[in-house]
């Protein structure tokens, strides 16, 4: 019990409450503890709650001020026709939501987001896995190679976007010059200016930018695969390829599932890279839900519609996140929940 008090985390709270509730059961299970301790237990109980309150209140206050309150305000704004200033008077109910959901540009934006979600995982996962497996082998300049792969992820998104916009500049950019040099004619409008290529071009840049995260997470996951398994496999005469397929990849499961989760949420909320490269254009070809709502809000001053779009984006992201947690991550989190108390009793 003393252990529980010293670590004011969520887990200890629950186990502590359990102890308090089933006090009698505990008492019989641990006869060494005299009854006098029961009173002392209640005192520590109160102290523990006080500690929890002291430690948690600032976090809760910040959470309420910067997460809950903005969400509440966004929902409120979404029910009004509002230009961004002046009092909220023009109540329109759910009209902004029907407008957003019926808007073809928004529908396209949702499709673009889903394309980015799917293709990000489909492209970055195999690529990231391959690079991680390669970089996990003993080789010269291993540290340098890892750094090179990880650098794009560390680079600020805005800087990376500006650099890529320059590289992809039609006619005068490096990409077009190189293609012309090897005899390929680049598209007349450039890769970012041609509606048919723009989204795929943005995806290429995103892959370059975020591959490093996948690789570094997978490399970390690889460290947790016990060497004994590899040794056993080696003894059994497994080839390198078999070892990777039968041992490494399955054991990386939790890491991969967690990375997919991060990638999905990021793709749904994608804004900065698109805004810098294309502003959602050309001809709305790269419009995402986030660029749509910025365009409606700050560019057109339709803050009601922008708020409705932001609530829709929030709901979509929340549903996807919850479903994924329930259906895919549940097993992983259950495993860790079991694993933790075991470690503590030791």
């Amino acid at each position, binding site marked *: 019990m003393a252990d529980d008090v010293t670590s004011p985390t969520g887990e200890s709270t629950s186990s502590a409450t359990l102890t308090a509730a089933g006090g009698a059961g505990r008492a019989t299970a641990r006869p060494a503890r005299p009854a006098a301790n029961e009173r002392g237990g209640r005192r520590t109980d109160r102290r523990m709650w006080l500690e929890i309150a002291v430690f948690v209140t600032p976090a809760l206050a910040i959470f309420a001020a910067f997460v809950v309150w903005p969400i509440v305000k966004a929902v409120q704004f979404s029910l009004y026709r509002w230009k*961004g200033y002046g009092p909220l008077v023009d109540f329109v109910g759910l009209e902004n939501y029907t407008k957003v959901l019926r808007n073809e540009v928004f529908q396209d934006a949702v499709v673009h987001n889903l394309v980015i979600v799917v293709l990000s995982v489909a492209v970055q996962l195999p690529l990231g896995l391959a690079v991680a497996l390669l970089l996990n082998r003993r080789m010269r300049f291993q540290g340098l190679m890892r750094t090179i792969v990880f650098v794009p992820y560390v680079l600020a998104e805005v800087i990376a976007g500006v650099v890529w916009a320059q590289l992809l*500049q039609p006619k005068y950019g490096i990409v077009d010059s190189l293609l012309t040099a090897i005899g390929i004619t680049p598209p*007349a409008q450039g890769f970012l200016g041609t509606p048919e290529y*723009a989204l795929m071009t943005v995806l290429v840049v995103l892959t370059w930018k975020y591959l490093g995260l996948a690789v570094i997470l997978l490399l970390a996951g690889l460290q947790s695969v016990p060497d004994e398994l590899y040794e056993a496999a080696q003894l059994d005469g497994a080839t390198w390829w078999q070892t990777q397929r039968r041992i490494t990849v399955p054991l990386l499961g939790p890491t991969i599932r967690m990375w997919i989760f991060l990638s999905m949420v990021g793709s749904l909320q994608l804004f900065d890279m698109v805004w810098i490269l294309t*502003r959602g254009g*050309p001809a709305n070809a790269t419009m995402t839900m986030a660029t749509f709502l910025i365009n409606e809000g700050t560019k057109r001053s339709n803050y009601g519609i922008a708020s409705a779009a932001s609530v829709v984006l929030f709901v979509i992201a929340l549903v996807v996140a919850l479903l994924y947690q329930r259906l895919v991550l549940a097993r992983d989190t259950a495993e860790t929940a079991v694993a933790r108390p075991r470690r503590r009793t030791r």
Partner: protein
Amino acid sequence: MTKWTGLRAVAATLGVLTLAACSGGTGGDPTTTPGATTAPGEKVTITWWHNSNNDPGKSYYEKVADDFEKANPGLTIEVSAFQHEDMLTKLDAAFQSGDAPDIYMERGGGELADHVEAGLTKDLTALVPDTITKLGGSTAGWQVDGKTYALPFSVGVVGFWYNTAKFAEAGVEAPATLDELIATTGTLKGKGIEPISVGAGDKWPAAHYWYYFALRQCSQSVLSSAVTSLDFSDPCFVRAGESLQQLIAAEPFNSGFLATKAQSGATSASGLLATGKVAMQLQGHWEPGVMQGLTEDKKGLGENTGWFPFPSVTGGEGDPAAALGGGDAWGVSADAPDIAVKFAEYLLSDDVQKGFAENDMGLPTNPAASGSVKDPALATLLKVRDEAPYVQLYFDTAFGSSVGGAMNDAIALMFAGKATPQDIVDATQAAADEEK
């Protein structure tokens, strides 16, 4: 000491106002700031935001503020010079929080109408009648229901800026009609010169083409009634789109124009013109200054800078001499002290406007300053502006950001070959119907 307490009181009140505005979510509650009365000698602080963040404009405005402070003992003017886009963003935020600067830049049209409706800006009609009379027709863009809410200090017109050397190289003259323009671009392309750059990635530079075609196709009465009635059913608006399609079909624009930015960086539309990569660009009166900033020698096109008005269109009902333009005016926020109005008036005085013109900061609206413009290109523009039968305010500004934004988006779609002339009218009308 007294100054400090005064400042602190202002700061505290502003802070409270901001908090109140945030928590209420409503903004615009006109609460009086301390020192709103202007007995002589009393300590007053006013705030002034402008976008002349480069010299000579920046130091000139500092001097103007100093002079006015000296003439009004006890007055402190807090001057903030912003980069233009930064200022617009900060102004929006300031209006939303109800903490707007006392004197700020107002662009007129629908934007101003929104500010007026929300009670954010002061009616200057009865406060500075002499200045309003002096400025004459220029104030039209800053009037709502016959009342003047801001004093325009620079009004310019949009036209083609071109590289005279490139034109000479191709042996072409400045075109006067749409057909001639298309022929000119053909000749330029034949010489291996990209004819026109347009920052369609930012949408508004592309939209200027449609605006100008509407100006050529529609009579003044149709346009002025459209601004108030928000009715775009006149067939001339569709014809404007058809003229634009005709120009786009000739493929005169720089490669990658759909993703080209307006005026940021060497590969923006202005950068391409400034560095001699294209022959011309349709742009506002600020273009020479922008181009100077985009070249290493800070000269832009230098002596190769040329300007010609937007060409006429055969069969159009509009006046071929009518110009598309717009400008900047000094607005005074609703709760600003009286001295702020006096300062705005001072900014439009003969002396300040003359200095403004001498520093090539824009196209002065005070007739007394007309002769003081030094830059030959700006002097040409001033002549065009003053001789134009009327200057139509940029449609996106005139109609406000909601209708204007829908309009610009649809026009940008036409540049990408994804919208018909009717689509532009429909999208504009749909957004306009929301406003009614």
